């Protein structure tokens, strides 16, 4: 005697939906892949009796939240399918609790044309997560001429970026902002002035001094952010600063927001958790990342920005690299680390458990905030919305293990770390795509 009115119910959990200002124990009813109703806890006992066992997801002791959105992910398809494919990246996303991810255009070929975008979208058809493409801001992400942004938007690009490279030419950046305004999409900027970052290996600090490595000064990020805020003001457009890592950048964005500039930004777990003090211990190449791990002072400023709302989103900047490419001298390793499967646990362990943010604050920065910045569907459990839902085991203790990664790459500096909090089940369109 299965329930005909609903397909599935998630019962007994604490439902947190910052978009609705909702945060209490409740049952979530799903029908036809959409959220049909959220019922107060305990009020549906009679109704639940009409459900078959396989229609009930027991979420007692768990958090039930809108499917998490990671707006900064590198899939390596096309080009480096040995490191990550669309399918494997989406499996990793689902395991990390993400139902939607935005992939960056620095593939090979670059996503600066409709065909490549469509190819990736096609690959994502039956994947375990929704994939939104961020198109290249300039052709071949060379920072010379704008790509055919209108074309990219037409096939679904949700933003443009040259991520990995700063659009160094201010004239070109101004045009990118102005042009993007026509389509109401943000320009996502990797803010590091290249003239100040020639040959850099790590953050410029006492650590780079003692290790004798070329350091990227934090002022390179600050200058880049200040310039782009000024350009955004002139262009009256939308600017999103990728992976903010410095006090100077956080201060600049805080001030710009006060002045009403349409600027948003994001931070990664690794910049919230790690500092450059780690690098000299074992020269672990997984710690080589762009922008680099910064000083304690910068890390604290980023946390402060997260707490006061200057930083809108938490993203993984998942950047897979093969074992071969990372098994080398520190300065020879390509920058980047994977993060889809560790983001939630790191944020719980080092941001929530340390008292910086509540679960609701974190969920906001991982659901509705990115959804609003990129005009994505989802990010809420509002009745009628697609049933992309993450069920979190909030205090689950677990150890990060290389062999457990769904990602094809294992370049994580967090292997061996003990974390608290993990995705328990991930539902995409009302269907369980991942469960533990």
């Amino acid at each position, binding site marked *: 005697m299965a329930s005909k009115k609903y397909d599935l119910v998630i019962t007994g959990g604490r439902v947190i939906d910052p978009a609705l200002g909702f945060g209490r124990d409740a049952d979530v009813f799903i029908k036809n892949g959409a959220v049909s109703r959220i019922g107060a806890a305990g009020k549906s006992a009679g109704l639940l009796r009409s459900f078959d066992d396989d229609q009930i997801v027991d979420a007692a002791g768990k958090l039930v939240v809108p499917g998490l959105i990671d707006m900064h992910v590198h899939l390596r398809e096309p080009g480096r399918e040995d490191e990550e494919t669309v399918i494997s990246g989406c499996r990793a996303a689902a395991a990390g609790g993400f139902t939607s991810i935005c992939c960056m255009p620095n593939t090979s070929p670059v996503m600066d044309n409709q065909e490549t975008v469509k190819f990736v979208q096609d690959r994502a058809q039956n994947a375990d997560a929704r994939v939104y493409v961020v198109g290249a801001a300039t052709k071949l992400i060379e920072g010379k001429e704008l790509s055919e942004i209108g074309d990219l938007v037409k096939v679904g690009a949700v933003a443009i970026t040259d991520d990995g490279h700063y659009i160094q030419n201010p004239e070109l950046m101004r045009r990118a902002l102005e042009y993007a305004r026509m389509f109401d999409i943000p320009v996502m900027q990797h803010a590091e002035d290249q003239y100040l970052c020639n040959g850099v290996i790590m953050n410029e600090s006492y650590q780079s*001094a003692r290790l*004798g490595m070329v350091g990227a000064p934090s002022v390179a990020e600050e200058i880049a952010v200040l310039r782009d805020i000024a350009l955004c003001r002139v262009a009256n457009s939308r600017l999103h600063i990728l992976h903010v890592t410095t006090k100077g950048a956080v201060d600049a964005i805080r001030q710009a927001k006060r002045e009403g500039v349409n600027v948003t930004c994001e931070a990664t777990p690794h910049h919230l958790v790690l500092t450059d003090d780690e690098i000299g211990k074992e020269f672990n190449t997984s710690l080589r990342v762009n922008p680099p791990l910064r000083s304690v002072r910068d890390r604290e400023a980023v946390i402060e920005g997260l707490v006061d709302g200057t930083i809108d989103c938490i993203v993984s900047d998942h950047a897979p690299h093969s074992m071969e490419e990372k098994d080398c*001298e520190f*300065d020879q390793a390509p920058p980047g680390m994977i993060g889809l499967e560790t983001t939630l646990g790191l944020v719980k362990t080092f941001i929530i458990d340390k008292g910086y943010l509540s679960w609701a604050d974190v969920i906001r920065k991982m659901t509705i905030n990115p959804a609003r910045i990129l005009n994505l569907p989802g990010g809420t459990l509002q009745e009628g919305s697609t049933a992309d839902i993450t069920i979190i085991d909030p205090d689950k203790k677990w150890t990060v293990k290389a062999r457990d990664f769904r990602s094809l790459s294992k370049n994580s500096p967090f292997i061996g770390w003990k974390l608290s909090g993990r995705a328990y089940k991930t539902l995409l369109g009302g269907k369980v795509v991942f469960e533990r």
Partner: protein
Amino acid sequence: MSQLSSRHLLGLEDTPRKDIELILDTAITFREVIERRIKKVPTLRGITVLNLFYEPSTRTRISFELAEKRLSADTVNFSTSTSSVKKGESLRDTVQNIEAMKIDMTVVRHGSSGAPYFLTQCMDTNIINAGDGCHEHPTQALLDMFTIRRKYGKLDGLRVVLIGDVKHSRVIRSNIWGLKTMGASVALCGPSTLMPYEVEQFGCDVYTNLDVALDGADVVNVMRIQAERQQDGLFPSRREFSALFGVNRERLKRLNKNYTIMHPGPINRGVELASDVADGKSSVILDQVTNGQAVRMAVLYLLSDREERETE
């Protein structure tokens, strides 16, 4: 018999005082050996040493090779000036292939900071750092300290000024750590553009005025200034560098009596160091080279797993 606390010599930052003392004391014996007519001892007979040089080097490579030969070790040289990545074979694969031919110790010079540490993760041999990037060059600093100690009988309480490109000098870094551990007072002097960020955290006195830096110093260790730093725009000309930071006779007046002039070589005569000073009676530049033999013999001897071998 006393032993070092590590089976590798990667740098001096974490090397304890007793290890440095043991190396310097042991080097005294080898310093006598190389003055003999027959300069060879059988100490490392049967031990094979790999000299792995990923950067061009003449004097350090020759110094190590001679030290090994005078200890009766077998030596094998691998030299390339291309990086492992460009070469198309990873550093791990390269050294594991050579190690498969049964190598006991590896001396490595590499352009990447931390490469010797990486080798400890790839191989079972003892690793001796012969210079990694701008990070450390521990045997150079040890031979500098040996040379100073040989003259003054101590390092404690001496004032040593290190002059030049602090930012890029692995010799300066290793000297800082070693000298501080041994109780010397260390001053750094060079153009502000060639000072690393947060240099004050090294715990040294930092000067951009050479005359002030030399005031009351016992030892002046002058580093080579690389022409490429000028091309990178870090100082405007050799002429101006020489005027501001060149050590010449006039400036020596500020030093303590019985002062010492040092340079790890090769010297840009007339740029960082005036010729008459380099060749003057207070210069120990060639002694440094000779002492380098003894110090490297001591390091090889102390690091080799010879006792294990003898009990086998």
